Structures are given as C-alpha cells and as structure tokens.
C-alpha cells in the first residue's frame, strides 16, 4: 500500500520525521519497504482566476487574459490555449518562476503585447505529456496559493507492506489510525453524514430496490443513485493522489470510487443506472449463468457458486471482482448507481483466484473490508461526485443487511497475557493501546478486560489476537529476552539423522564431494535413469514450472551426471561426488518418498602423485567405496553383488554392472555407465556410479558391536589353492562353495589372484585362493593342516566341478 504522507495528514498530525514514522510502523508489523521523497518540478506557480479573455490584437490564435492571483496581484497574460475561459482557475507562472530545467521565466513581448506571466499546461509543469490546453484547477484551488502545495507535489510516499491479516490497513485512514496509535496522536476520522439533497431538483426520483438472495456470501449491500452526472476528467489534485497510490485516473466517477477505496478501504462500484433493468439489484449465486462478459471485454466462464450482481434480466458484475461491459459507466452516462457492499472474503478469493482476476477491489474484499463501513463510503463518494462530476443524489441510500454482524466481545485475561509474553504490561498501557486501535474496552472482572474490537478489525477473534496487538504497539520492546529451562536434559538422538550424518562422513572420507540437485526433472530423464526398482512409475507434478521440470526424480543419477557435465564443461578433469536426497515414486495411487544415496566417479581417482600412476575411476574403484561404507555400517556380510540383466538398468554397461542386494532383496545398483549413455554425455573415460536406497538401512545405523574378542593367541597357517573354472563363474560363489565344505579350523578364504591366458584353456580362468587355518588353543602343525587342506581341495573340486591348477 502506497501511503502519501500529505493524504495521511488529512487524518492525523504527527511531528516526527519520516524515518521515525517508518521505523515505528515497521516494528509494529507494517514494514515500510521504501520511502520516496517527491519534489515538484517547478516553483513560483500560483493558482489564479481568469477574469477576462479577449482576442490578441495581432494574432488570431492567441488570447489576451486578465488574471487574478489574489495577494500576488492581477496580471495581463498572453495565452494560446484553446480551453482558456473566463472564470476558470489555472496555474499562473509569474516572472522568475522555475519550470523544470528551463531558465527562470521572464516577461515577454508576444506579437507586440507584453505578457506578465504564463498560464501553464500539465506538460509545462512536468506533470504529464498533456499539452492540449492549460491545466484547469478545481474551484477549490486557493486563489494566489502555491500550485505545488495544492497539487500535493511536495510529498513523501511510504510503500508499506501489508500482511494478509491487515485488510484494514489497505487504506490511508487505516494507516493513519496505526500512526496515531503508535504516536499517541489523535485520529481525525472523517464525519460522514448523508447529504440533504436527496432527490434531484428537477423532481425526478429513482427507486432502487435490492434483493439479496445469497446473504451467506453478502451480508450487507448499500446503494445510491446519483443523477445529473457530467462525465469528464477529474481535477488534478485527485488524479495526483490516485497516481501517488499507483492507480491510473480514468474519469471523474470511476476516479471518485477509487479515491474513496484508497481513503477508506471500501471498494465501490458504479453502474450506469440506465442499463439496470427496472432499477432492481439482485445479489445472487451464478447458478445456471455460465458466461459473463467483463469490463475488459473478455467472456468469463462462471462457477455456480460465484457471486453475481444482477438485475431481473441479466448479470451486471462479478461481485467484488469486476464489473460487466453491459453496465459500464461511459461518457454519456447521466445517472449512476453506486454500490457499496460487504462480500465474504472466501467467495471473492475463490472466484478471483479461479478467474486469475486480481483487482484492487478483490484484493481488499479478500482481506476483509470494514464490516460496517458501507454507508459511510457511499456518503463520502457522493460528496466527491457532487463536487467533481456535478452529480446529485437521486435516491435515498438503500441499505440492506440481511445478516447482522455478530457481536464480538473478547475477554482479555491480563494474567494470561503476562504468562504468554513473559512480561508484565501495566493494565493502563494495555487498555490505552487497545483503545487507540478503535476497540471499546471495559472491565469484566478483576484482571480481565472486556474488549469489543472495531468493525474493521475482523482479524481480532480471540484473546491471543488482542495480546498481539498490545505487544505489537510496544514494538515488542516490553518483552525481555530470557532462556527457558531445558525441556530435554539430554536431547534424544535421532537415529535417522545420525545415520545420514555417518553415511556422509564415510563418503567424504572416500574422496567424494557432496552435491545437491533439484528434485524436479524431465520425464525423459526419469525414463533414462529408471531407478533401482524395475518398472518404477514416476510422480507427476500437477502444476509444474515447465515440461522440463514436470516430474519428481525417481533417481539421483540424472542430477549427478548433469553436475558431472557442468564441471567438465568448466575445466574439471575429474569429478567424484555423491548426493543424499529423497527420490519419489508412485506406489499404487500414492506418491511416496525414499532416502537415496548415489555417487558418480569419473577420471583419476586415487593416489595421484607426480611420477606415479593414478587409479582411474571404474567399476572396482567405486565398488570399493561402497564396500567401505557397507563395512562401516556392519552389514557387508549380508550384502551381495549380482551381475545385472541389461534390461534392469539400460543406462549401465551390461558387463560391468551389478545389482546390490541385502539379504537377497535388491537395495541398489552399481556399475559403469553404458557406452551409449557415456557417448550421449560426451564422456571419454569410464564413468562409475552407484545408487542405494537407504530406507532399509537406516534401522541398522552405525551402531557399535555389542561383543568383542581378544586378538588370537596362536599363529595361523596359510595354504593356497588355484582352481580352473569357467570364465563367467563368479568369484564369490567359489569362496562360498569352499566355506560350505565346512573344513574344521578354516578361518578365512580370500581370492588373491585371477588369471586368464595361455596357461589355461580358452573360456576358462584360474582363481587363486588363500586359506587360513587357526586353532584357538594351540599352534597347528604342518601335518595337521596339510591333512585338512587336502580334503578341502578334493571337496571343493567336486563341488565346483573345477580342475586343480598345478
């Protein structure tokens, strides 16, 4: 809300500098976002009456005028404007006047006649580009008075951010009331009484009938007919005020309704009375009415619950949102009907939102206008229209209120206030703060006030609201800053957080940098990186920002490869990163979220130094990271890596990828990107990735072991064996088979070499294993171990159908 201080001063006088007004408003919840100081573009221009106009003796198009500038004197001025007339008030620039950046005005001889000043157009005063004629000042302009002051050109405009609860501050009067309360100044609210001239002098009277069919949506509707209207431009001062508040001037009637809305907060609407069938207003739901053409000449589709203003034949306006083309006030309108109503905020919000139509009026109705302010606003508007459009009241004010405002008395327990704020505010202070806001305050019981909020504060509904008002008007400065007693002597540990923190720690230690990517992605990326689960259905966003961001990610992979590409495009040679974040998918009809961990590793990875070979990222380097992590959680013995069917993850290299299982249930994928995918991303080297669903792992956490063993007392004896197997036979199956032989005293089995080449048959490989034997109670002898190992070799050979390599 733009607040010109000159307008505010119509209602309250405060001496404080503008900085202090801004500061106090901001502390009280009305943030002043900007302070604009305006200065007029001219000086030495005075309001003058044109007394006499006669032709210039030497020029047809020029006039010679006698003008009276009150105390400044009378002057003879040459004027070329076609609109100059005897009797009009106009701005007179006298000798020495400063107009814009021009040199000071001098007396001039124009076609042989001396001109002692200049009557100015809007353009000459720098007000607008208008230069068709001189600016006509209102009849109320003070003779000889400074035009800049009269037009409020010397002004300061505050831009105040109004929170949604403070509809009452969407007006100059409302903000003036706040300022008065904050500075303990008196508010000069306008006294609004109906005018005497009810009825036009020519005897024509109009009857206005109002029928409210939807009192639930419109509890009050007031209207007034005015006739004798002469549509035309508004006076400059009024236009100026509208413009300072960010509104454009249109014509005097519309401007008057907008002026009253800005001043009092009550939106008004003017209909062309002649276009209302039978002078009858019906406030009803749209029902069967489906279409309506609004002022902007667009056809709007209505919802049956939209509230309409109609006559007996047709709709006239979408209540509180926009008027109709069919009853618009135009240049020929002579009689108008002014509407001033209270519409329920919810219905206006719903309709305005659905139609995408936000107006100054709907904005105020949505936030709740003064529940009792309708008639006052009509009176104020009528007064203005009389003054600026020659209108006369042509009917009594029709005022219908089928649903009365509920009486609102709220008890304010001062003890409760103290225990909520943690500060004792003296009862007299609380009382005077509430009164300054327009509330009626009385004592209900000892320590309890009875507060009736003013009709314009619909946001004050219960005790907490009143406490806020009291605290707010003190700028919250009555309240000290104290530390509470601890609620938790020791804050309980959140396992999920600890787990995610530990996971992050392992990843950092393995050399991966943490990345963060946005959860919205393109459907093509979800199709390409289809996640851990086969046939995952992505979650669609109903109202996405764009088609490229229309789904939620099922995998963290697209974000990470994008980040990889981003860095390679910026001179990076390697990129090793991980992300922990949520992924989303449809489970049946429900959208679900899952904690995932994913990593991407590209380029030189480990142990780089000058003169040394670095390890390039690949399947085994990233598998090592994952193994380190699984060991850290203590679940590595339950995790297996199984070669992947290429259809399960088409983005992975079919021969260099695996599914990761925990107790045989899939929890992740690991592998190098498919060469086709790498080519799409323009990668020259292998790019290794993995993705893990952490949901199932969080339960394991990084919980420490419960039991421990001392290191063994007796040495182990190692015996090796090498088996020749089919090339594709997985190594972990060999180890498993040997363990299953159940040799006594066998402590561990490890693969230490794999050989393929001329020494074994084509399609075969040799797997070398180290077996360690150990007894708990003695040092084993060679003979004992040889006996066990020989049996083991025989059993393993048979179990695996393998040759022993000599």
């Amino acid at each position: 809300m733009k607040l010109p201080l000159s307008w505010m001063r119509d209602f309250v006088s405060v001496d404080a500098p503008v900085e202090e007004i801004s500061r106090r408003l901001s502390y009280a919840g009305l943030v002043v976002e900007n302070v604009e100081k305006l200065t007029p573009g001219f000086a030495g221009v005075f309001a003058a009456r044109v007394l006499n106009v006669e032709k210039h003796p030497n020029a047809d198009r020029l006039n010679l005028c006698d003008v009276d500038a009150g105390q400044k004197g009378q002057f003879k001025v040459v004027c070329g404007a076609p609109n100059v007339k005897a009797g009009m008030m106009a701005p007179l620039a006298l000798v020495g006047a400063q107009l814009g950046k021009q040199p000071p005005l001098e007396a001039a001889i124009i076609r042989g006649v001396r001109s002692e000043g200049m009557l100015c157009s809007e353009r000459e005063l720098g007000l607008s580009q208008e230069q068709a004629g001189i600016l006509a000042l209102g009849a109320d302009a003070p003779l000889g008075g400074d035009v800049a002051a009269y037009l409020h050109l010397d002004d300061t405009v505050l831009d105040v951010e109004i929170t949604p609860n403070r509809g009452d501050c969407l007006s100059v009067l409302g903000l003036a009331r706040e300022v008065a309360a904050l500075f303990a100044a008196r508010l000069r609210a306008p006294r609004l009484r109906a005018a005497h001239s009810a009825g036009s002098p020519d005897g024509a009277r109009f009857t206005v009938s109002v029928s409210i069919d939807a009192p639930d949506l419109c509890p009050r509707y007031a209207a007034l007919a005015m006739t004798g209207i002469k549509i035309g431009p508004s006076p400059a001062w009024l236009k100026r005020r509208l413009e300072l508040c960010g509104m454009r001037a249109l014509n005097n009637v519309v401007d008057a309704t907008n002026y009253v809305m800005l001043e009092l907060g009550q939106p008004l609407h003017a209909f062309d009375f002649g276009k209302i069938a039978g002078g009858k207003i019906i406030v009803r739901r749209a029902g069967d009415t489906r279409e309506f053409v609004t002022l902007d000449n667009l056809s709007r589709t209505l919802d049956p619950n939209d509230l309409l203003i109609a006559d007996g034949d047709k709709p006239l306006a979408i209540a509180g949102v926009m008027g109709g083309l069919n009853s618009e006030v135009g240049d020929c309108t002579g009689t108008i009907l002014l509407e001033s109503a209270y519409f329920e905020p919810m219905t206006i919000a719903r309709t305005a939102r659905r139609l995408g139509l936000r107006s100054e009026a709907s904005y105020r109705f949505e936030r709740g206008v003064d529940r009792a302010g309708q008639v006052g606003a009509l009176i104020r508007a009528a007064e203005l229209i009389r003054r600026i459009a020659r209108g006369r009241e042509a009917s009594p004010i029709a005022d219908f209120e089928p649903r009365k405002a509920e009486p609102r008395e709220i008890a304010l327990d001062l003890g409760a206030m103290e225990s909520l704020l943690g500060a004792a505010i003296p009862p007299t202070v609380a009382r005077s703060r509430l009164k300054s806001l327009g509330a009626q305050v009385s004592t209900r019981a000892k320590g309890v006030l009875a507060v009736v909020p003013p009709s314009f504060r619909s946001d004050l509904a219960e005790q907490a609201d009143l406490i806020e008002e009291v605290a707010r008007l003190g700028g919250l400065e009555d309240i000290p800053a104290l530390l509470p007693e601890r609620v938790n002597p020791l804050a309980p540990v959140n396992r999920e957080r600890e787990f995610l923190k530990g996971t992050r720690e392992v990843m950092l230690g393995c050399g991966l940098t943490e990345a963060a990517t946005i959860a919205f992605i393109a459907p093509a990326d979800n199709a390409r990186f289809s996640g851990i689960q086969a046939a995952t259905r992505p979650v669609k966003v109903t109202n996405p920002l764009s088609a490229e961001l229309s789904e939620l990610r099922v995998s963290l992979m697209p974000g990470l490869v994008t980040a990889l590409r981003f860095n390679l495009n910026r001179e990076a040679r390697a990129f090793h990163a991980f992300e922990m974040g949520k992924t989303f998918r449809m489970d049946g009809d429900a959208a679900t979220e899952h904690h995932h961990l994913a990593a991407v590793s590209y380029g030189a990875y480990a142990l780089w130094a000058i003169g040394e070979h670095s390890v390039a990222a690949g399947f085994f380097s990233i598998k090592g990271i994952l193994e380190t992590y699984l060991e850290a959680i203590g679940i590595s013995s339950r995790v297996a890596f199984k070669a992947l069917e290429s259809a399960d993850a088409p983005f992975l290299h079919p021969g260099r990828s695996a599914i990761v299982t925990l107790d045989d249930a899939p929890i992740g994928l690991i592998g190098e990107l498919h060469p086709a995918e790498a080519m799409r991303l323009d990668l020259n080297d292998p790019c290794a990735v993995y993705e893990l669903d952490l949901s199932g792992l969080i339960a394991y956490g990084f919980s420490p072991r419960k039991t421990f063993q001392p290191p063994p007392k007796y040495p182990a004896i190692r015996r090796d064996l090498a088996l020749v197997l089919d090339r594709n036979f997985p190594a972990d199956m060999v180890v498993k088979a040997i363990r299953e032989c159940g040799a006594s005293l066998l402590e561990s089995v490890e693969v230490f070499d794999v050989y393929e080449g001329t020494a074994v048959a084509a399609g075969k490989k040799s797997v070398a294993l180290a077996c360690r034997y150990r007894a708990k109670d003695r040092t084993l002898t060679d003979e004992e171990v040889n006996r066990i190992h020989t049996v083991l070799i025989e059993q393993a050979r048979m179990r695996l159908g393998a040759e022993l390599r000599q």
Partner: protein
Amino acid sequence: MMREQLEEIRRRAMAELADDAGEAQIDAVRVRVLGRSGELTEIMRGMREVPNAERPAIGQLINQIKGEVEARIETLSEKLKAAALSKSLNEKRLDVTLPGMRIARGHLHPITDILEKMLQIFESMGFEVAMTQDIEDDFHNFAALNFTPHHPARDMQDTFYLEGGMLLRTHTSNGQIRVMEKRRPPLAVVCPGRCYRRDDLTVRSSPMFTQIEGFMVDKRGRITMAHLKGVLTEFARAFFGTTAVRFRASYFPFTEPSAELDMHCILCDGAGCPVCKHSGWTEVLGCGMIHPNVMRAVQYDPDEYQGFAFGMGVERTGLLKLGVDDMRLFFENDLRFLSQFPALSGGVR
C-alpha cells in the same frame, strides 16, 4: 733388533693409515700387518729366538702395535662408511615441495555445512532433531497451521501439487504438526528438511530449498515470548556472532503474536546500504507464539499448553553468512565453489 723391526712396522703402518687412506690402502695395511702371514705374525713366529728375558716386553709391544693398528683401521673404516652413506643420502634427496600422494577427502555441501552448524547450536540448547516428510497433505501443510482454504497467505507460498492429491510441503512447519500429533509436551524440537515452492531457479529463488522449523511447547506460562526472544538471540549470537538483533511484529497464520528477527546487515553493519534498502537490517527468520488454532488442530488444549515456533531458510541464511548472493550456486555443484567448504561435518563453528 726385533724391537727396531717392530717400531718400523708401526711407523710405516701408521703412515700409510693416514686420514685420507682409501678402502684399498686400509685393506692392504690390514693384510700386510695383521694378516695370517702378515708382519706381526711373522715376528710372533720368530719369538723362539728371543731371549727369555725379553719375550714379555716384545710380546707386549706386539699386542700394543696390533691394538693401535686395529683401532686406527676401525676409525678410518667408520669414517669411510659415514662418507659413503652421506653420499648415498644425498643422491636420494627428494624435492619435498612436490605434492604428496593422496586420496583427496570430499567436501561437505554448503547447505549441509550450514544446516549442521545450526542444528548443533539448537541441540546444545536441548532441542532434539526430528525428520519429517516432504510429500504432505493439505491438513498438515496448511489447515492445521491455521490456513483456511482460501486464505490470502496461501498465495505467498505457491504450492506444487502432485498426482494423487498430495502436495510438496511449502515449509517445514508441517514437522511441528507431525511431531505434536504423535507426542505430548514438553517438547523442544527442530525439524530440518527440503521445501518446495513454485519459484524458478534464479539468483534469489529456487523451487527447492531447505528450512529449519523449531518449536518448544510446555504447560502454560513455562515457555513464553520472552523465551522465544532469548533462544533466538542466543542462536544469532552463536551462529552469526552478533548481538545486534531486533524483533519486529509480523504476521504468520500459525503464530500469534508473530515476529520477525532482523540482524544488522552484514554488508554495512547497520549503517545502511542498497542491499538492506538503507535500513541497516536484514531479515533472518520468522517466529511467534504458537496459535491456539494450531494447538487445537493437534488436540492440545490451548488453555493448558503454550509454546513458541520459528522457521528459517537455510540457503537464505547461508547467503547472509557466506557473503555470496546467488542462490543457484547451491544447486550447480561447481567444484570450484564446493571445494571451499570443509571436509569434516560439524564440530567447528
């Protein structure tokens, strides 16, 4: 006669075992003097011809010379070895200024870094951490937080809706509802998490961002607005290292009274600059006393319980703290930016 011979052997040996004697020369002396058929051995063999009375003296002299030569050889050999070692050490010298061989440790994402620091401050004040969901229903994201169906405040938080009727939370305040629904006071909880609003990714905004919601609830009178001010002032002191803060009345549907916490603008330290619109202050977070309607929504009796709640944007606060001014930096994952952040989570403030 024999004595002169011995003296001659000693003199010659010692002369040859000069300071600059090389390994070959030393070996030659050792063999000639001390060897199995060396000069001293030869003389020992000739002892029979020495008169009995002189034998002990000659024997002693032989041993003396032997000892002297051996000691001299030992000294020279040590010296030679030391010289050889020193020569070889010199040859194996490295350029110690070359980089070491290492697996570089990864770096924390700045959002994590900032979030962890914030959480640690609240944990040290006795708050527990609760993790809550991103996919939410209207009740937990809006209705229970006192947003009526067409509440104008909903416009400030343009919401993403999902197929199936759910939405993405627009703030972590849903955490307040989720935790309070399940548990009874006293509670002191912070809920971190991602939030989503329909804003494009720009210098100032992102469709996905991070927030921390915090709240404390207890019996009426035990947690007051003064405590809200105390806890958040302490937070600002710990996190930003400033005591230049102010509380300003504001409005949120779910708190009453509501306030915003401002701190001195980091750029101008309160003097006023274009970034803070010449006010000298920047907004840090929103807070207030939990609205009675929120209490009612989670079946708490508002006459029995009260408490405060606050919420802050991690990226926004991070921009203030880090002194950078582009939201996109957080989601581009540019290593040249990320590598400036610590490689250890938490711990150091």
